[in-house]
């Protein structure tokens, strides 16, 4: 690059020491080459400084905020959970369960098991009434109530988030 041009750019950017500044100002005044180069570069510099910014679409902010609504608050515990770790743990447990089942099936001596015939395996004779104790029914209702509360909580949170977005 032309050294004279570089010096002029440094001068325009305000990157010269006071001594260098005086020197270049003197050159611009006395040397026609420096004068022409300075006028050209200053004109370009002024044009660049006046450049206007482009405008994104009207819905840009709304689109961003719609996506942000589904993101956890930065820094919250939820945001710190790495999905890869969760997936890794699930994969580990899944693999362990599958391996255990495989080992179990391989270890079992199938020939020693009594053969099931239509008469021996009478499923209809199983006593189901014993299952319907008050404890089972209470547990069943308790789980239902918990699920209902979770569903209502999720529903209300979504409604609040969408209301907030509309107010932006």
């Amino acid at each position, binding site marked *: *690059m032309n050294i004279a*041009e*570089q010096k002029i*750019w440094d001068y325009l950017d305000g*990157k010269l020491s006071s001594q260098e500044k005086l020197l270049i100002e003197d050159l611009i005044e006395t040397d026609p080459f420096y004068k022409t180069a300075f006028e*050209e*570069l200053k004109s*370009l510099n002024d*044009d*660049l*400084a*006046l*450049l*206007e*910014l*482009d*405008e*994104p*679409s009207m819905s*840009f*902010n709304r*689109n*961003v*905020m719609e*996506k*942000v*609504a589904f*993101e956890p*608050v*930065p*820094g*919250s515990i939820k*945001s710190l959970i790495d999905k890869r770790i969760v997936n890794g743990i699930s994969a580990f447990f899944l693999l362990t369960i599958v391996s255990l089942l495989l080992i179990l099936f391989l270890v079992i001596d199938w020939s020693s098991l009594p053969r099931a015939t239509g008469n021996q395996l009478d499923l209809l004779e199983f006593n189901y009434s014993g299952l319907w104790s008050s404890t089972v029914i209470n547990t069943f209702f308790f789980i239902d109530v918990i699920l209902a509360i979770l569903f209502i909580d999720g529903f209300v949170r979504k409604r609040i988030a969408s209301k*907030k*977005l509309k*107010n*932006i």
Partner: protein
Amino acid sequence: MRNNLSDSELIGKILAGDKPAYAGLVARHQRFVFTLALRFVRSREDAEEIAQDSFIKAFRFLNNFKQNSKFSTWLYSIVYTTAMTHLRKKRPDVYLINDGDGSAFFDIASEQGSDKLEHKSKMAYVNLAINELFPGDAAIITLFYQGEQSLEEIGRQLSMETKTVKVKLHRARLRLKDKLTSLLAHEVGELL
């Protein structure tokens, strides 16, 4: 009023759980982020996608922003890396950067009239010349002039030494000047 709050005040609110406060940050920086994204891709749709992704990433990692630099400096570095990733994914688009003949701009420029129109056409030429630069050169010019970032701040965003940024900026302006000269020569040729 959210508009009166500084960037760091808005960030404090967001980190305290006020997610809608992020809209204030987006509104404040969206024009520059979009303009910077446009320096890497030609289509406005792609630029909007880059700008949106950058804002989402910035939100996700907002707690990592240490506030020892300007929020804009940190945000623009995210835009830069997001745009580079986008370019790597859509490689063929890179070559589109130089394919415009600028006819739309010549139409504006050929109209003679008020100072405003002259200014508009001049700016159109400068914009066109910037669009014809390599994305890296265009980004440095945009960050320096439109983003009002210092050489040190640009260096932080692009992971470069300040000296390297200075040399790159000089070269980019030199190329821009050449592009502008050839564009204007083309216009004179058209008129003759």
